[in-house]
């Protein structure tokens, strides 16, 4: 068996099949990164999994999952101004949480260097939007390198580290979902473990580090100078490249994963424009852009999400009085979705139908029931939503939050009607409860999110005497991103640590109306919600049940078997509560109208037994 951690920490050069997220970790080790921080979020959590695989004695890096992206960024910053090369990574919308800290970084002399790895999510496949984080780089004067493949993720991380250390400035490596998760054979260099210098090197001589009044402007001036210097240093960088085509009058400027899609699309064509592929998307190499524009009559800027490069390229053309015809976004649809090969074909065929035809109409499409993500068999959230729905009135307002429990908004539960972002639920619920004596407000919050961004909203609700019911869905883990520990677990990424129980935190804050119940205990939960809804002020119910996906995995790993699955006995009188209302995916419907249990799915948790009005659910014998 090939062990990932051994491969990652091997001193030898070599090549291995790995995903972009893993390739980044090999680069971290080669670059001499000492401190890595993060908060889990798709598409980046596999970076942490790769770090976890490295044998402790061969891992010079300190890693932590911090409570949120802002703290993670601060920890990495602190390490950097003490002389350690650091890296923080998180998902697309994570930068919103980190923003207050992040935008200050370029003002600071980061003596150890600091690389920010961003996992953007064009297509919003696992995020609440598909925001284009290149805007953050512009507003904070931070350079961005943008790889297209895992091999480039590896080499660009190394380059970003080098530049960041040399220029003492933050550098972003911007990945997107299918660069993070793309797999290919990556060739890597030798790994030389450097002798570790642990002396704390923080010094005011590298300052100022306090951006107040006139200092803030001085520091901004320095940041702008560094950015300009970065532009000059990288003007002829081999991270930008040109691919010659067969049609010399036309060119395409592109970057990142869309570059690969473009090549797929052009491989269908005989008329292939030249391509300028940018590896450094901010600051743009003015010289390369001018050279490319002036050697083509028409240039298409092909970029995913927003028109960031397009605006800059047009400005450069204006300044240099170039009359190249520049085409950017043509249609609102050009701003939306991931630039897959299909999407690029559609976008390109709209402006150059002679280069590539639009995707053809194939055989008649097959109509098929969709299959959205859903809660796992045995999930405590299902049991809770099934029970809570029974006591909510149609006029009540339910506020969702981020986590597996967001899925409660789906059929058949339909609990959770509004969602902004991590930890918004208490604040939003507070606003919904103003001037509102008629519609009761219920907010939901997960336990990892409780610590991440949930606390200020709760404190505010106590402080300002808001009136709503908060249901904390405590499953003992950060489930949706792959079961990372959070502060209530009693274990961090590396070791056993002090537990910070949710209930104690609430009590400490001064919440005096707290109820706690196992989410499988539906009658008690219903009773508690009914009681709480009738009371005034902030009422908290902790609906607790361990994540059963994590639980069953651990059970199997320890060599034990699951309890027997359930079966539908002959008392069944076809009320279909199990299938239609409780809706555990283990329950399947036969053509003859009978109900059967898919044993591949059922984990024998029996949370369904109490929902059957005719007491027909029994344990399977085996």
């Amino acid at each position, binding site marked *: 068996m090939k062990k990932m951690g051994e491969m990652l920490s091997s001193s030898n050069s070599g090549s291995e099949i790995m995903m972009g997220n893993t390739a980044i970790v090999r680069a971290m080790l080669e670059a001499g990164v000492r401190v890595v921080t993060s908060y889990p979020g798709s598409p980046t959590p596999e970076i942490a999994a790769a770090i976890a695989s490295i044998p402790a004695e061969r891992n010079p890096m300190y890693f932590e999952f911090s409570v949120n992206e802002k703290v993670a960024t601060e920890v990495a910053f602190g390490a950097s101004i003490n002389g350690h090369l650091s890296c923080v990574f998180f998902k697309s919308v994570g930068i919103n949480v980190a923003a207050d800290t992040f935008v200050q970084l370029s003002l600071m002399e980061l003596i150890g260097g600091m690389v920010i790895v961003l996992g953007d999510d064009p297509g919003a496949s696992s995020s609440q939007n598909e925001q284009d984080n290149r805007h953050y780089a512009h507003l904070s004067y931070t350079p961005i390198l943008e790889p297209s493949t895992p091999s480039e993720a590896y080499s660009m991380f190394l380059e970003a580290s080098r530049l960041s250390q040399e220029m003492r400035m933050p550098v972003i490596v911007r990945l997107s979902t299918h660069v993070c998760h*793309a797999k290919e054979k990556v060739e890597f260099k030798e790994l030389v473990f450097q002798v570790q210098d642990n002396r704390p090197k923080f010094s005011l001589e590298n300052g100022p580090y306090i951006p107040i009044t006139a200092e803030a402007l001085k520091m901004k001036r320095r940041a702008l100078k560094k950015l300009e210097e970065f532009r000059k240093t990288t003007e002829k960088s081999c991270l930008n*490249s040109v691919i010659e085509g067969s049609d010399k009058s036309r060119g395409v400027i592109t970057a990142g994963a869309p570059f690969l*899609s473009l090549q797929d699309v052009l*491989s269908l064509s005989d008329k292939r424009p030249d391509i300028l592929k940018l590896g450094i998307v901010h600051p743009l190499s003015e010289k390369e852009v001018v050279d490319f524009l002036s050697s083509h009559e028409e240039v298409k800027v092909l970029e995913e999400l927003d028109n960031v490069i397009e605006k800059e390229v047009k400005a450069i053309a204006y300044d240099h009085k170039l009359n190249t015809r520049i085409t950017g976004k043509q249609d609102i649809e050009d701003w939306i979705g991931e630039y897959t*090969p299909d999407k690029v074909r559609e976008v390109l065929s709209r402006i150059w139908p002679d280069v590539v035809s639009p995707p053809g109409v194939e055989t008649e499409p*097959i109509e098929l*029931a969709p299959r959205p993500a*859903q809660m*796992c068999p045995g999930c405590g959230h299902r049991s809770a939503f099934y029970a809570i729905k029974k006591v909510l009135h149609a006029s009540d307002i339910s506020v969702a939050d981020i986590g597996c429990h967001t899925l409660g908004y789906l059929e058949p539960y339909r609990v959770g009607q509004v969602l902004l972002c991590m930890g918004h639920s208490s604040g939003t619920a507070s606003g919904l409860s103003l001037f509102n004596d008629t519609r009761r407000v219920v907010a939901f919050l997960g336990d990892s999110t409780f610590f991440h961004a949930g606390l200020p909203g709760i404190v505010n609700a106590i402080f300002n005497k808001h009136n709503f019911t908060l249901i904390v869905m405590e499953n003992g883990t950060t489930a*949706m991103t792959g079961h990372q520990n959070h502060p209530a677990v009693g274990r961090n990424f590396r070791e056993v640590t002090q537990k910070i129980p949710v209930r104690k935190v609430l009590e400490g804050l001064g919440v005096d109306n707290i109820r706690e119940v196992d989410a499988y205990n539906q009658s008690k939960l219903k009773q508690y919600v009914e009681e709480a809804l009738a009371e005034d002020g902030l009422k908290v119910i902790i609906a607790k049940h361990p994540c059963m996906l994590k639980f069953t995995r651990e059970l199997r790993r320890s060599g034990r078997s699951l309890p027997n699955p359930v079966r539908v006995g002959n008392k069944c009188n076809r009320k279909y509560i199990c299938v239609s209302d409780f809706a555990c995916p283990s329950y399947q419907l036969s053509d003859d109208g009978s109900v059967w249990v898919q044993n591949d799915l059922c984990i024998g948790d029996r949370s369904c037994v109490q929902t059957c009005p005719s007491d027909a659910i029994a344990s399977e014998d085996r």
Partner: protein
Amino acid sequence: MRLLPKIDKGCERMEKFDIYITGVGGQGIGLLSEALLRAIDHSEQRGIGADTHGLAQRGGMVSSHLRIGHGAYSVLIMKHSADMVIALERHEALRGMGNYLKKGGTLIYYDTVWQPLEVRLGRAEEIKNEDIEREADKRDVKVVKVLVENLKDSRMQNVVLMSKIAHEGLIPGVTVKHFELALSDLMEGDLLRNNLELFGELSKQG
């Protein structure tokens, strides 16, 4: 700046072979695609790929794209252009064929059913093997249906499919030996032994 190699028409340079894998979250699609990618690599062909799901929970449709050859750039396959669709579930087999398989391609699927919500709610019909055959005929698709009665662990369905693909030689240039090497890269001890045993047994059954 550097100059990169020109784009060739994929077909001029070498045969490209695209595989779209699909199933339901929790069926072990990750292991299947990782093993296939490694088997492709052991056959000394260039392979790239990506799993296209980000979230951990089960029950949603998941897919994985695998591409063989130097004419493949993006890890994502264009619609209606896969040479082969591998499905771990019957509904997803039909969906995968409709969305990704090219005319004349091959569909191989494990014949188990995890009903989507709409089927469970009685609003949509369950897909039958006949539905798949009918649509396959329209598209000139070769169908390979796989099922092992009394498989002792449903989590081995992915290995059953892998074995069929290997022994029938469904992926050009990739042999049984390459698959065995791939499995040895990914597991050890009893797990490897059990899987290799199952892998071998299935070949005898044809």
